[in-house]
């Protein structure tokens, strides 16, 4: 009996004139965790979305256990034995947890057209209990749960029926440490049952530790498939980027003195129910990190500094004495903010790259009569999109068509264009590939050297250690420790203060 579960043969897919996949062919085996890696825009999600029925491929075939499959939606894919957990939120408001789990598969609970809600809830509760998620109740409306719990519901939804292939698309970055552990446990269980996980992640140590086999895509082309045991991180980076990733990944300097000049003073900031009594100072040319568990309140600190928190108490004061209490004041005083929730809070998805980049700079770009020139906007957007090496057809392209990493580049291009002095970057490298990460780290380092100050909020401990002059650790909405940059700091030092 063949070990091959899925044969991918000559699969191609284009969006307009952009070729997302060009004749991709490789095999995936039974009973393995098969990682799919590549830079942003390399075609990983396009390939798995085509397999799962979200997109329709233009050419080629998927052969599952010897039979060609062509699902046109996720339910058809489920019926063929393929499921997917998507990068962003995949559950629907207005429905209960149980309705979300069985959406598209209600038939088993319907008799003579009438849905047996009690039976559906009972079955969903059994599954949630079986997965160890019994704090989530089947009859509750899904919107009562946070992002992470909703992701756990998606894990149940995607795996309860024992699919032959489960695609996990860049899901781990949305989860806290505990959430990731839960996901890893289920990935291993699927493998032990003889089924297959296709795992997309930019976290190379995570990929190496979890997967059995790794396939690399680059610019829509198949590059190579390697055994995880036979390659290291540098080898993977080389395959992904197409050359040796040389030069510093993180900052190399240690012991550099940070300026004494305070550019932002945060005093006794409280956001009821989220953060309590937070005080710190941000210095000129400093990268100040915030770390902690996902629900520690660190993400709210960023919003509070940008004047975006509701019911905030306490003071955020700039060097010139300005109090930052709202977003317009923050922007007019050269503060930039990028949210963790890129698609919903940072980008205007149905607008062009040009409009997204120019948005906060429109006043600067307008002439004396407050009129805007198309040419000027385009050249401004072109300049800063190019500075960030954004992969696109033109700045007139809709931002919604870009990959996750390129969307983040658009967000950063916007604030570089605005020439902001203080940048609050919440999870700036979430879902971003190794090359773009390196670009962002180098950009942050250049900004720091030119006197810009950065607050970096991240769940990636290594990037906090690698990039920050100082790291503040949050726990239960409060500051639980502060660590200065030093060579000997490791993840365990931070974790000890986080949990």
């Amino acid at each position: 009996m063949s070990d091959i579960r899925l044969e991918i043969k000559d699969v191609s897919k284009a969006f307009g004139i952009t070729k997302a996949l060009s004749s991709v062919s490789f095999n995936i085996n039974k009973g393995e965790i098969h990682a799919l890696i590549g830079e942003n825009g390399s075609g990983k999600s396009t390939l798995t979305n085509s397999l799962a029925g979200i997109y329709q491929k233009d050419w080629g075939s998927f052969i599952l256990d010897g039979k060609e499959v062509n699902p046109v939606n996720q339910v058809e894919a489920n019926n063929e034995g393929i499921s997917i957990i998507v990068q962003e939120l995949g559950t629907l408001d207005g429905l209960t947890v149980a309705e979300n789990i069985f959406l598209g598969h209600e038939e088993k609970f319907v008799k003579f057209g009438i849905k047996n809600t009690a039976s559906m809830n009972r079955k969903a509760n059994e599954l949630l209990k079986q997965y160890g998620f019994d704090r989530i109740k089947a009859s509750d409306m899904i919107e009562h749960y946070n992002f992470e719990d909703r992701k756990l519901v998606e894990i149940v939804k995607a795996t309860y029926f024992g699919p032959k292939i489960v695609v996990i698309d860049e899901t781990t970055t949305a989860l806290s440490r505990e959430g990731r552990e839960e996901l890893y446990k289920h990935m291993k269980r699927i493998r032990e049952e003889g089924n297959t996980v296709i795992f997309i992640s930019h976290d190379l140590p995570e990929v190496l530790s979890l997967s059995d086999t790794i396939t690399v895509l680059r610019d829509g082309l198949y590059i190579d498939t390697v055994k995880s045991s036979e390659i290291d991180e540098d080898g993977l980076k080389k395959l992904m980027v197409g050359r040796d990733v040389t030069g510093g990944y993180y900052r190399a300097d240690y012991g550099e003195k940070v300026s004494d000049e305070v550019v932002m003073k945060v005093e006794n900031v409280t956001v009821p129910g989220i953060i309590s009594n937070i005080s710190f100072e941000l210095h000129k040319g400093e990268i100040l990190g915030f770390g902690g568990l996902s629900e520690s309140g660190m993400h709210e600190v960023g919003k509070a500094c940008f004047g975006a928190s509701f019911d905030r108490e306490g003071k955020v004061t700039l060097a010139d004495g300005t109090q930052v209490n709202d977003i317009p004041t923050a922007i007019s005083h050269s503060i930039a903010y990028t949210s963790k929730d890129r698609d919903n809070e940072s980008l205007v998805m149905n607008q062009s790259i040009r409009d997204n980049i120019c948005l906060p700079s429109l006043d600067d770009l307008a002439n004396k009569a407050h009129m805007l020139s198309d040419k000027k906007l385009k050249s401004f957007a072109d300049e800063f999109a190019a500075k960030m090496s954004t992969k696109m057809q033109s700045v007139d392209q809709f931002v919604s068509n870009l990959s996750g990493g390129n969307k983040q580049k658009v967000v950063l291009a916007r604030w570089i264009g605005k020439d902001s002095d203080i940048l609050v970057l919440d999870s700036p490298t979430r879902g971003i590939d190794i090359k773009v990460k390196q670009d962002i780290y180098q950009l942050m380092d250049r900004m720091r050297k030119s006197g810009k100050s950065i607050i970096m909020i991240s769940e990636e401990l290594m990037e906090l250690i690698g990039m920050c002059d100082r790291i503040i650790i949050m726990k239960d909405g409060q500051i639980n420790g502060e660590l200065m940059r030093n060579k000997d700091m490791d993840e365990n030092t931070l974790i000890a203060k986080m949990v």
Partner: protein
Amino acid sequence: MNTSTETAGKKISGQVKGYLLLILLVIISWGIFKIITPNNFGSAKNMLSYFEASLLAAVGAVGFYFVMVMGMFDFSIGANIMLSAIVGCVFAGRFGLGYFGLVVGAILTGALVGLLNGTFYVKLRIPSMIVTTGLALIYESIANFIAGGVEQTLPSNLRAFGQMPGNLILAVIAFAIAYLILNYTKIGTYTYAIGSNEFVAKNMGIKVNKYKILAFIISGAFLGIMAVLTISYGSSMVAVTGMASMSRNFVPTMGCFFGLAFKKYGMPIPAIIIGEFVINIIFFGFIALGAPTAIQDVITGLALLVIVTVTTKVAKGEIVK
């Protein structure tokens, strides 16, 4: 065991909160007019007649809820009611089909109008507001043509649905059907799924266009029932033109707002029924006061804004469009 009890407790407390809010609105609206005009407003008998009158729009509103919760709109409600009532009346009287002709004729006409609304909306791919506004003009003209420009009167022996208990029985059947569809069929689940995120719903294999058309058909059929109640209650119908039928849109739409506002408490249909009752108390209160129509409209409009603002507690930061 404990947890399930807790969950049930949570659910009950949410619904109880919703019912308490609605009952409070009834008491407040009744109380205000009772104080101002104690003699000719708000007796038990009066309240019953206000409730009877509110049943008409409540039936239309529960159907319209299926369309609105999906994020669509229908400006042809009034035209649909008018056309369905006239067809029902013609079937019952002119064709001699009696109650069967009245009920089936009106419901089928309403459903057909819904089918046309949904199909045009889906096929033309233009906003539902624009499609239904255009179609409303056509429905009005068809109604006028069928009526021959003459007021259509329902024979006096066919008006059982205009009074107790006929109106109540028909309305209760309609509410029960709406409740069943919404809570115990796939249609209800898919209605909410499409309203929440159409793209994800589509990826889940839901035939979004089919269910959008179905929502318009359901809405149309319920408006057909509302037409039966309306012509039975008022005994006749004039086929107006030039978008004059739009004045009939207001009351069912207001009831629907109640349903949307109380959706979070898991009780949209009771909210529509009680909401329409509150609206009627306010209307009849103004009539008892003898207030000029313009003043009535201003206060009713303000009351709508206040009620929806108070009952729809939007979370901070939540975007409202």
